[in-house]
């Protein structure tokens, strides 16, 4: 049963990914295992609850969190051994991997993409491509893992703004769309709304069907299972009908890209 009551969990380890992103590995003492693209409500005592996507669940639940507000700031101050509250998993998750799939991730959209890539790599599929855009080279998360994935799948990284050492592409994520191998793929887009909006526009120019585009949406999901009313986009609740939506399902709702 979906519940409002958090379960206590211990932080097994904390990893510093970048200046403002940390990963938290938590004990998994919940009944249900997640699916790629689902999220949890993480409770930082004295601060509040926040919805965070699952990044990985091999040796515990891994969440990569960017420091953007009050609760994430407090979470960043937590250490190995500290206790958090947790509820979940919530939401529908990504669609089944049924054919070549292009993941387009912007910024802190990479952790949810990781849950998909890891899950389907572990099932033996290599039929994926990752296009990842970060703000600067120092904002790139999971460097070692990206390197490892490139042994199995096609990985392309771009940064909005380069530095002296950066030899790769400079430009927003749509500037590497010429790398897309197959227009008949499924496309999963995860990132800030402005990035999703322009990605959809470019994909449509490439002739990609709206039925093959999936967006991972973000709203203020407070309860996680469709009762608190905070995360609706039209008739849909992001927490229970999403967070992943087929673009064709929600495209006519003016609130999608606000």
């Amino acid at each position, binding site marked *: 049963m979906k519940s409002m009551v958090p379960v206590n969990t211990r932080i097994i380890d904390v990893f510093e990914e970048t200046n403002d992103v940390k990963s938290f590995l938590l004990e998994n003492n919940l009944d249900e295992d997640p699916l790629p693209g689902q999220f949890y409500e993480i409770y930082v005592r004295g*601060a509040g609850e926040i919805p965070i996507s699952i990044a990985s669940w091999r040796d515990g639940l891994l969440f990569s969190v960017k420091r953007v507000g009050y609760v994430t700031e407090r979470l960043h101050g937590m250490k190995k051994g500290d206790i958090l509250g947790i509820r979940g998993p919530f939401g529908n998750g990504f669609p089944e991997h049924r054919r070549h799939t292009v993941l387009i991730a912007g910024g802190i959209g990479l952790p949810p993409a990781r849950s998909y890539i890891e899950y389907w790599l572990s099932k033996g599929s290599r039929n994926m491509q990752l296009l990842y855009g970060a703000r600067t080279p120092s904002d790139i998360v999971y460097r070692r893992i990206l390197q490892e994935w490139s042994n199995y799948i096609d990985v392309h990284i771009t940064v909005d703004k380069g530095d002296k050492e950066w030899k790769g592409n400079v430009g927003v994520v749509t500037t590497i769309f010429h790398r897309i191998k197959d227009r008949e793929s499924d496309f999963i887009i995860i990132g800030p709304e402005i990035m999703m909006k322009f990605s959809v526009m470019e994909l449509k120019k490439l002739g990609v069907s709206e039925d093959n585009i999936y967006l991972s949406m973000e709203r*203020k999901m407070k309860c996680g299972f469709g009762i*608190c009313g*905070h*995360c609706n986009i039209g008739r849909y609740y992001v927490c229970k009908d999403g967070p992943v939506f087929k673009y064709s399902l929600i495209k006519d709702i*003016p609130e999608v890209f606000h």
Partner: protein
Amino acid sequence: MIYKIKKDLLKKYIDGLLEKYEVWGPKKIGNDTVFSKLKSGEEFIDARTLLGPKESIYPIKEKIGEMESKEIIVMGIKSCDLRAYRMLDDVLGIDEFYSSRRRNVHFLNFVCTEPCEYGFCSTFFGPRLDEYEMQFTDIGEYYIVESKNDKLIGRDFENATEDDLKILESKMRDFYNKMPPMNIENLHKKISWDDPRYREFSKRCISCGACNFACPTCFCFDTYDDDGLYREWDSCILSGFTRMAGNVNPRNTLDLRLRQRFMHKLRYHYENFSYYLCTGCGRCIEVCPVRIDIRDFIRGVGP
């Protein structure tokens, strides 16, 4: 079964209930008529209160994980409010705390035989419900009592006669004559995203959230930490309702929030549940300090 009880025996009946149960009902506190716990049958008055008894199943604020549930009787709830809580069931029913409390509350609804000033319940289902536990209607000397749970029937109840039911029917006919239903056919299809009135309303609306607070069907709640996790009624009219970390706000202007309120009640909820999230109780109209009137809004929804 259909019973009746003499009006002057109602106090005695309530006193009997009070021996076994906590009973809530409308009563006078100072000059105000409010829904509150009753101490005696004497206090009970059959009247519409400004706020319904939503708190009996859904407290304004409560600590998550420490919610209580006890068997109580809510006496004198108006049909609009009772119908609203049937609607809340469809959304909040999966919440363990709501549902445990809900199972423990007996609603004894009282049918209005005169329209209230702001109400428009005849547009939706009228003052008399098909789903109830015990439903009371004033027919003069008696209340007709329609019962689907005889557990709470008292000693002073008699069987209603054919003639009593005829009075009931004529009272209802009168009611509908005085409050003709509005045309809401396909309202959920006609109501539009870009109705210019959302912007017009936003020039008057002061974002007080009273409409949400008074609404018996508004179910949204916020959660926050205050030495423990709490949940508390929330309002979609307030700017913080959708605001996320980093000041990202999908409804950053008031017209978008007013649109949400009307669209949720008259379209989204209909799309999900096949009925409007409104009972026509009129409270949002009554409490609105700038006279935003959902009846006018409905009448003005395009062709």
